[in-house]
């Protein structure tokens, strides 16, 4: 009946050392007003000092999102009055945004979809406020922190698509090293623009905007609520009001903030204190070259090498893990095996011991050698599990462990046959039972032989020879 039409505006705080238009520190801190300067406070007579790293990061993200990028740097003033806006205007981009007409391709339930990026621009964050009983407190630590705003076209129609877009976007942002993108630290904020329309409608419905959502889970809740609210309103003959709403988490609903009918005119104009800086092609090329292979592409590569989609997704979730896996793959071992080891054993170990992949002792070459040891039959897969544990505990390479502990798998048939015969002769009752039809006892003899060999005997060979000897 009705389908949702959703556009998103995502704000991400950049991880530059200093703020966007001032030289004060850009660092998350719990101490109020610790990272401030006269520029952040908009004291009379200050001038804006644009940060080159902010520009680089914005261009980098624009390129990651396939946007057209400009040849010059220009900023504009967005004029309005609010307690958290010291200058009475925000420095942002209207005339020459750093990205236009880009896109991000997503994959939802096997179907591919393109979400178009309308615009990407660089701007500064406002101060933060805490509200007490009769007064509000202004903390200017956040005032002036660089922000990139990414605005999509209203191309999404379901919660799944929205989540997929957001997850991918965050992943790209982190891969590009632009932002920590931590929701807890408020470094990634989402505004949702949503309207409903009937399939047969040709024009979009009236939209509501829900601002400043801090977590992806809340985004899901907001959209689900709004879809229901708007659909109920429209079905009963009512009209959706064009307005700004906020999510009231305690009541689990969206609440109207102010009607957008009398939209604020921000009286934009070009910032006169920042002369136009030309972006030459070398500068832009350098940025383009610094873009790493992005998660989607990496996933496709892993899957094509035999890695399961689930494992591939797990691996690309963090760039450092994916980089680690890429290194492992350089050693020409089976990708699927390597991914299993990485996702089940190594990542499990990391979680238990609160270690990052860069802190863990087992380096990519070591993981590769472990997989190789198993696949060439030098050790059994059972032994490999032990080698893995020993290697991490004793901080020695798998090869060293195998050597030291004499764990090389025995595959020599002569030697194993001796063991099998020994086991058979030491277990006459089970032998009789087997001969008289209890063929399940095969497992017993295999197990005993492995025990005698202290786990070193190649299970496949043991199996084969036990069968041979029993069936003589």
């Amino acid at each position, binding site marked *: 009946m009705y389908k949702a039409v959703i556009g998103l505006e995502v704000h991400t705080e950049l991880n530059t050392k200093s703020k966007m238009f001032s030289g004060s520190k850009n660092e998350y801190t719990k101490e109020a007003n610790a990272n401030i300067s006269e520029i952040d406070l908009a004291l*009379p*007579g*200050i001038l804006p000092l644009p940060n080159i790293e902010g520009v680089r990061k914005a261009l980098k993200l624009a390129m990651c999102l396939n946007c057209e990028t400009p040849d010059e740097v220009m900023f504009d003033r967005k004029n309005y009055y609010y307690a958290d806006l*010291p200058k*009475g205007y925000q420095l942002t981009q209207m005339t020459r945004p750093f990205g236009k007409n880009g896109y991000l391709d997503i994959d939802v339930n096997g179907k591919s979809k393109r979400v178009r990026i309308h615009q990407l621009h660089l701007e500064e964050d406002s101060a933060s406020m805490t509200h007490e009983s009769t007064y*509000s407190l202004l903390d200017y630590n956040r005032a002036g922190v660089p922000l990139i705003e990414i605005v999509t076209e209203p191309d999404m129609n379901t919660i799944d698509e929205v989540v997929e877009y957001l997850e991918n976007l965050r992943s790209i942002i982190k891969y590009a090293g632009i932002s920590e993108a931590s929701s807890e630290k408020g470094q990634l904020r989402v505004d949702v623009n949503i309207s409903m329309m009937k399939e047969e409608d040709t024009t979009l419905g009236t939209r509501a905007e829900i601002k400043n959502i801090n977590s992806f889970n809340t985004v899901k809740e907001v959209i689900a609520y709004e879809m229901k609210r708007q659909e109920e309103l429209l079905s009963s003959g009512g009209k959706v009001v064009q307005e700004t709403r906020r999510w009231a988490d305690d009541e689990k609903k969206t609440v109207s903030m102010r009607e957008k009918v009398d939209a604020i005119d921000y*009286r934009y104009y070009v910032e*006169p*204190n920042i002369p136009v800086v030309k972006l030459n092609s070398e500068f832009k090329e350098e940025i383009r070259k610094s873009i790493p292979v992005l998660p989607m592409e990496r996933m496709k590569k892993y899957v094509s090498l035999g890695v399961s989609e689930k494992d591939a997704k797990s691996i690309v979730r963090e760039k450092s893990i994916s980089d680690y896996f890429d290194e492992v793959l350089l050693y020409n071992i089976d990708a699927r095996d390597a991914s299993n080891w990485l996702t089940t054993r190594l990542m499990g170990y990391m979680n238990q011991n609160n270690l990052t992949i860069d802190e863990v002792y087992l380096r990519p070459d070591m993981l590769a050698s472990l997989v190789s040891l198993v696949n060439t039959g030098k050790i059994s897969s059972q032994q490999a599990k032990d080698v893995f544990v020993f290697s991490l505990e004793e901080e020695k390479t798998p090869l060293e462990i195998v050597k030291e502990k004499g764990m090389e798998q025995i595959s020599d048939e002569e030697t194993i046959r001796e063991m099998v015969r020994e086991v058979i002769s030491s277990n006459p009752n089970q032998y009789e039972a087997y001969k008289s039809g209890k063929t399940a006892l095969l497992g017993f003899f295999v197990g005993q032989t492995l025990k005698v060999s202290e786990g070193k005997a190649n299970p496949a060979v043991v199996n084969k020879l036990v069968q041979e000897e029993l069936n003589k």
Partner: protein
Amino acid sequence: MKDKSILELRSLIDEGKITSEEVFNESIKMANDSQGTVNAFVTIIDKYSKEESDSLLSGIPYALKDNFSTKGILTTGSSNILKDYIPVFDSTVYKKLKEAGAVLMGKTVLDELAMGGSGLTGHTGIVRNPLDNTRITGGSSAGSAAAVAMGTVPFAIGSDTGDSVRKPASYCGVVGFKPTYGRISRWGMFPFASSLDHVGVLTRNVMDAAIVTDVIKGKDEKDMTTLEDESFKYSENLESSLEGKKLFYIKEILESAALGEAKEVASNFYDVIHKLKEKGCIVEEISFRKDLLEVIYPTYFIISCAESTSNNSNLTGFIFGPRGKGDTPEEVMINTRSEGFAEMIKRRFIIGSYILERENQEKLFLNAKRVRNMIVTEMNKLFEKYDGLVLPAAGGVAPKINPSEEVDRLGDEYLLLENHLAIGNFGGYPSITLPSGFIGNMPIAVNLTCKVKDDLNCLQIAYQIEKTLGGER
């Protein structure tokens, strides 16, 4: 020390005939004595303080317009909205002068927030012309011009957005120099209209203007619009010859000087031209599009109102300045701003805001910016052929004080002679006003404007003009 130039004071101090502290004391005494009549100062420094330096300005007293931030010293912009504001950082100009050993003796009155041209709108009261107390000094650098004219200081710093250094210089009979845009850093200077604002210098003679500019010019990493450093000093290269220099003046502007005082101004101007020609200078009359000349003032007015509205949006009383009452932040803002701004300023802001409204920008704001482009383009073409534009600085002597009326420059009688100095701001050109004569006992002046970054040439020619006209006062 009254009426002494910088170099004259320099010798007196160096020869031990007077100490810089004595000079300072004399200066503040003169200032205090004059407050009842001229009222040039918002603040007169009471304690002598000076940094060690061997520069030419060491020990020389000066006045600073009260829109330049001085750490620990009241800086009000001559507005009630900042009447108790004490900056916590220095403007670059102040910092450089301090480091050069110059001695700040006072902060001078301006038209409120630099938005005016009379000297009558500062929050501490009107400034009267020291040469004739019934007349204005002009503005907005009213107090700075008066301080130099009175002889309390050999130099003062001002700011010039449409003519705010160069017009009061004319009315007060002193030299007013506005270098190229970006030559002097605006860090710490309260902004009026950022794309038109310039730092300027008021002195008794051209050499002093060069000396002061040498000290305060330079690239500043805190002001992205500043120009690259020059390897030479203006004051050491001022000597040149008028022989072969090519100047032009605008026919339409002189033709408009048909009646009364303006006619005398034109007569004085032609006299000056004649003297320059005798020295081998080429001076030619050029025709300039009258339709563009006629809209110089509205163009300036539109751009400056629009920019000023935005530049003063930080004045809310939250972090600094007097704070109005209120139960919500918005009420506080409204009361602070309603009480803090004078009515004239509010009218300018409303006009400025209207100009920037989305539906008005094309016809109002953008068109004015296009006219700016047209005028600058035409001027740049002329500067390819000529060293400078010379014109009378004003249409007459300093007008009489009429406290109830701002000089109506937007009215139907456009006075081309009154409004052309804004060309120097549109294009960021170096421009200097120098006294050229008297009508009765009130001074009049000529103005020289040269092409962008040609500050040295501008000062050199001005220096020669000054010599030709009989030197300093």
